[in-house]
């Protein structure tokens, strides 16, 4: 019985659509759980700045407030370990997801970002014979960026018909990506496809259009605007691509995992969740299920969570 337990979400950033969708899912699922009396409290906390030290301080404040479990989307995989360890030492269950922490005492709900990168190239190999690729990366020096990029490069090494002719940092932001692509595009040869990390596909499409270049095959990242654009293209000229990203609802999985641990259930320390893929066929459904400005999402119920764990 966890009806007296309190679970807090420590979130390091709220300034983009993915995070907003994540917070929305949390509020919906965890809020329902509180109403249903499954847990006593499940507030979400966001730091004003995406900053390790602020989040560490936030976690410490949560320790002080005596939460039973802390669910974390971390600003850094290693740099929060100090605070996480303190939480564990205080007997608090720590579950990290998306931005996971490496501290051994914490639970991790990880996405295999490397595989995500590789899937993109694998998909391209099924679609086109080969050609030049443009890679849009995330924020330099951040772990996720390196992982996805490594996966992409691994894929390219496997499929030697592809060649990455340009690589820019789009910081996972649509407008930054648009700017970076617009700058490098004039000097690039014909681009067959664009591999992305999510949140930047629409910006790339805009940049190609603005430069008057033929639209290449752009791998999308499940954002509403990306899917909407894709849909328009699909209806207009049968444009075909794929879209892949981690679902913001994974936060709710983390919530249930924390709840189960508090409930005394046996949960493995490391879980891997599949990333969410939208294909040509599922596009309409995904689009319909996503609210404007959001991200294609899957929210977990307790049963889903149990299934996810059992499936492991």
């Amino acid at each position, binding site marked *: 019985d966890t009806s007296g337990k309190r679970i807090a979400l420590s979130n390091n950033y*709220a*300034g*983009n659509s993915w995070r907003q969708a994540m917070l929305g899912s949390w509020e919906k699922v965890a809020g329902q759980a509180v109403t249903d009396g499954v847990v006593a409290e499940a507030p979400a906390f966001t730091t004003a700045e995406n900053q390790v030290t602020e989040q560490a301080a936030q976690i410490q404040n949560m320790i002080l407030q005596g939460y039973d479990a802390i669910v974390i989307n971390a600003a850094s995989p290693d740099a929060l370990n100090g605070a996480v360890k303190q939480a564990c030492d205080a007997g608090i269950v720590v579950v990290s997801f998306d931005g996971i922490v490496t501290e051994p005492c914490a639970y991790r709900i990880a996405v295999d970002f490397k595989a995500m990168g590789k899937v993109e190239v694998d998909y391209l190999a099924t679609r086109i014979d080969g050609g030049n690729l443009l890679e849009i990366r995330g924020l330099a020096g951040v772990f996720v960026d390196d992982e996805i990029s490594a996966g992409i490069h691994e894929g390219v090494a496997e499929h030697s018909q592809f060649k990455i002719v340009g*690589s820019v940092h789009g910081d996972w*932001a649509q407008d930054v990506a648009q700017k970076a692509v617009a700058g*490098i595009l004039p*000097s690039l040869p014909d681009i067959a496809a664009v591999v992305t990390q999510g949140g930047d596909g*629409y910006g790339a499409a805009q940049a190609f259009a603005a430069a008057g270049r033929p639209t290449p095959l752009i791998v999308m990242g499940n954002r509403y605007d990306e899917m909407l654009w894709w849909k328009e293209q699909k209806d207009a000229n049968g444009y075909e691509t794929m879209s892949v990203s981690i679902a913001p609802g994974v936060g709710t999985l983390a919530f249930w995992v924390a709840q189960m641990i508090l409930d005394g259930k046996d949960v493995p320390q490391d879980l891997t969740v599949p990333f969410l893929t939208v294909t040509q066929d599922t596009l309409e459904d995904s689009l319909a299920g996503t609210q*404007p400005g959001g991200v294609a999402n899957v929210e977990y119920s307790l049963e889903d969570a149990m299934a996810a764990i059992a499936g492991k």
Partner: protein
Amino acid sequence: MTFVKTLSQKAWIWSFVGMFAVWLATAVYTGGKGSADVLTAALSFATFTVIVGIGQMFVITTGPGNVDLSIPSTISLSGAVAMKIMDGSNAMLAIGFAASMGCGVAVGIFNYILIRVLRIPPIIATLSSSFLILSSAIAYGRGLKIKPPPLLADFTTAQIMGIPVLAIVIILLAAVMGVVLNRTMYGRSVLAIGQNMRAAWLAGINVERIRFFTYLLSAVLAALCGFLLSGFSGGASLNMGQEYLLASIAVVVIGGTSVAGGKANVAGIWGAAMFMFLLVTMLNTFGASAGIRLIMTGLIIVAVITIAGGDEPQR
């Protein structure tokens, strides 16, 4: 020769020199491929930096300690509000624009109240208000990504002979602002306040009214940037203003405006904004690793400013 010499003493000329050098380096590397298109792209993107840069310039010119850190969140809020109100319909364009300007005015007034009535140092006042503004944007739109009205999208992306229409408009705006700075009472007052606030007051300048207009102008231009930017990039997003925080300050200062206040230059903002864009483009084209790219970016900025040199020391 004397022409070259007087020109080289103008701080702003160096931003153009830097811009040209970087562009040339890129062109040489790519064998001239797409060099003209790169300039077009640079013009399109520099436009937005210039809009906020102009506002930031006036603020910075009013003296040390004056800087507007709320520009990024004002961009986000204005974009979100305008997009939601217009909801992709051309008919609502004017109303959306008015709402966006309204955001700017509100932010400007709010900032000024913090600075004036609550006497909070401007840098902290605008930092605090930026948090509040961002929260408003979140609460209002939750990162809503609504497409801009086609008319707005077309206008912001239109080109005439490879020159973005918006860039032409903003070049005109910059020219007007240059005149405002140098040839109007308001501009003169800003320059005077920046040199010595007390002396300005004693010379009959209504210091507080001028400061109010300056913060208002900065916020309104940020709002305008948000409006146009969301038209240009196909919708508003919460983090779309983020990169303009440092960029707005950087282009102002690289463009020859003195952080000590009292000395400003509008033309330099254009040079600096183009320079910053082309610099990133050059390094992207060279394809160096992220670390090397960052180091090169920094060193080139420092090199340009070092060659330009600082102000002549006064007697």
